[in-house]
């Protein structure tokens, strides 16, 4: 007989696989995120041109714009993680069958992989169209991975909270502001340091602390939010 721990891992993996299988067949979140990311990239590049050649813009403005693009791309797709389960009534079967923490981790793994995939497409395009040179590419990758994880875990947690309410989309926006703002400020700072070639400073430990604390908060809050 399988142990509770192995059932938990298998449950989380099953949720992750199911979400990707459904997503690859419906392409709802992928299309929404890709459309938003491409549109904002085109608009930004058309409006600013190769702004990376201007040192002041490159350090002060472009890192913030990159994270705004990623924020809105995430907001276009990740809230669906739980809202769709409620709206399509599949949440009933999930509540009865899945351990809540395994469900949260499975959804989080889906959100993280989706967002990191989008970052892998958007970030190089953004650097290219903006002619933005990065002095510390390794630090930029760390900023994108740690920041992307934080954006995903924050968005999935907020989506779980908002899915239980009536005004879901409004509530997502309201809750996203206080939860995601600190993350974005830290991620922008870390990205700015990467572009300028400055040391990561306190931004990296702050970002990792944010990721860890929101993950733990999600694991603790989610069962109470998900079940009556």
């Amino acid at each position, binding site marked *: 007989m399988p142990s509770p721990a192995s*059932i938990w891992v298998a449950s989380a993996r*099953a949720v992750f696989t199911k979400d990707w299988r459904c997503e690859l067949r419906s392409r709802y979140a992928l299309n929404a995120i890709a459309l938003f990311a491409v549109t904002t990239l085109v608009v930004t590049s058309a409006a600013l041109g190769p702004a990376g050649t201007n040192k002041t813009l490159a350090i002060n403005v472009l890192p913030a714009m990159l994270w705004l693009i990623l924020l809105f791309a995430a907001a276009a797709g990740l809230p669906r993680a739980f809202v769709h389960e409620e709206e399509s009534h599949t949440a009933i079967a999930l509540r*009865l069958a899945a351990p809540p923490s395994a469900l949260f981790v499975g959804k989080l793994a889906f959100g993280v992989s989706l967002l990191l995939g989008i970052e892998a497409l958007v970030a190089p395009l953004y650097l290219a169209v903006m002619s933005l040179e990065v002095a510390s590419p390794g630090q930029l990758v760390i900023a994108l991975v740690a920041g992307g994880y934080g954006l995903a875990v924050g968005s999935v947690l907020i989506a779980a909270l908002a899915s239980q309410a009536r005004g879901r989309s409004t509530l997502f926006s309201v809750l996203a502001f206080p939860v995601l703002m600190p993350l974005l400020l830290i991620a922008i700072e870390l990205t700015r340091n990467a572009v300028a070639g400055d040391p990561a400073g306190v931004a990296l430990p702050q970002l990792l602390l944010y990721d860890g604390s929101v993950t733990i908060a999600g694991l603790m809050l989610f069962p109470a939010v998900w*079940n*009556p």
Partner: protein
Amino acid sequence: MGSVSLSFDGVRRRFGRVRALEPASGWVLAGETLVVTGANGSGKSTLLRCLAGLLAPDAGTIEHVEDGAALSPAERRARIGFVAPDLAFYDELSAGENLEFFARLRGLPVARAEELLDRVGLPADREAGALSSGMRQRLRWAWALLARPRALLLDEPFQNLDVEGENTVRSLLGEHLASGGLAVLASPVTLEVAGAVSRLDLGR
């Protein structure tokens, strides 16, 4: 199968100002069926959701005992089998993929999903989104029986089924009761069910 019983006393629930369920009491033992009847809006579905642990009642007590141990709401959710009209599956997945997913969630062998699909007469490769209402109901039954629950909570369980489908699920229900399981069945009309039956009318 070990012993099982389900009892509830004074269970009521409101949604805002609406009194969805007036205080309801009843019990059902192993091998028995409790048939809950009542008009539309009398609270049958609400009662079943409270019993399943999907809704917290505003007042009253629910005691689900298996092998002498009272189950918590979380344990009830994990142990019961549930059929309801608004229980839905993933339209993008086939009937077989849906059941396999839920089997994996519960740490059950995938063969159990295949066996149940065969019993209810559903093609495993048909997309859930393309199933007729009757086929969806068969899938709900297969899903409910996946973990071999001892307590079945059935909200309008024969809805949309053709004669063959109803005979099939009645046979599954009979096997469940014969093996020592219990069932609570909710319907707006009086239903005939084989075996030991008690009735609760929610009125209104």
